[in-house]
């Protein structure tokens, strides 16, 4: 398929997807599959490893949407920090290595119903609302330079407030996990 020779208007349709759209859908299917395995697998450590696949796939989706900086922040913080924290949490709560049959609670069928209903509603709404909307990916929207300029020119106050929030979370985590001193 020679995409370059096709005029722009005829490339805009579900039946003639562009190369970026095909890659986006394929990676999206991988992300969805990994997310489903994360919430359904019986082995707790495998769930954390499938979470890595889902979050890494999302970083690729950000790259395809030309948001480079967000993609690398996603890799650094989510895949690097959050998943390691989750693995530490699983090990410190003595998660079994093999399959644990009681990983799912008894109301999983109710949960499935709620999730399917929410998915049907949201997908119907979103498809109906944005049926004829296209993103122009011609220019890079999220380069590091553009993000840095806007972040430190227009979003300085939220940025500083966020640093205070992180400090509060740090202190809170230390206070929570500190052991009480035994009375002599």
């Amino acid at each position, binding site marked *: 398929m020679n995409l370059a020779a096709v005029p722009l208007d005829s490339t805009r349709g579900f039946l003639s997807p562009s190369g970026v759209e095909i890659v986006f859908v394929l990676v999206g299917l991988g992300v969805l599959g990994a997310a489903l395995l994360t919430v359904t697998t019986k082995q707790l450590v495998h769930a954390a490893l499938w*979470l890595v696949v889902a979050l890494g796939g999302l970083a690729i989706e950000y790259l395809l949407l030309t948001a480079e900086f967000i993609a690398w922040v996603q890799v650094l913080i989510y895949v690097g920090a959050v998943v390691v924290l989750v693995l530490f949490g699983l090990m410190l709560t003595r998660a079994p290595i093999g399959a644990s049959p009681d990983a799912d609670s008894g109301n999983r069928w109710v949960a499935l119903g709620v999730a399917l209903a929410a998915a049907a509603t949201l997908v119907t709404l979103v498809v109906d609302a944005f049926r004829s909307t296209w993103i122009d990916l011609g220019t890079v929207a999220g380069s590091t330079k553009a993000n840095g300029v806007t972040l430190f020119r227009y979003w300085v106050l939220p940025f500083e407030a966020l640093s205070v929030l992180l400090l509060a979370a740090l202190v809170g985590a230390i206070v929570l996990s500190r052991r009480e001193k035994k009375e002599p």
Partner: protein
Amino acid sequence: MHLVFPAVLAALLFCVGLYGVLARRNAVLMLMSVELMLNAVNLNLVAFDVWLRDALHSGQALTLFTITVAAAEIGLGLAIVLLIFRNRGTADIDRVGRLTDGDEQAGGDEQAGGDEQADGAETVGDDEMEGVG
């Protein structure tokens, strides 16, 4: 790119996370599902920011803030889960219902179990003390 692709992916990812939060029993797995839901929101923010070409890059700035808040959230959440595990000996959220109504019987049983464990720990400590002495 058609805007429907990222929007539908975000909606489905959010619903997968919703299922995980409702169906999982281990508290750490529930936190992982919350992360999936937050990531769905992030994908929506980035996609709509790229679509609207916002001059302030609001969507991407908010995505950075969401990622940071999610990191703080999972740090605090895991600290709370570890505290519960240390006090009750379980990370099973179905069995951590002492604050709910009508759970006093189960709460009493857990209380007894906790006392037993505390007694055991105390005995071990005494033995060590005697050994040192």
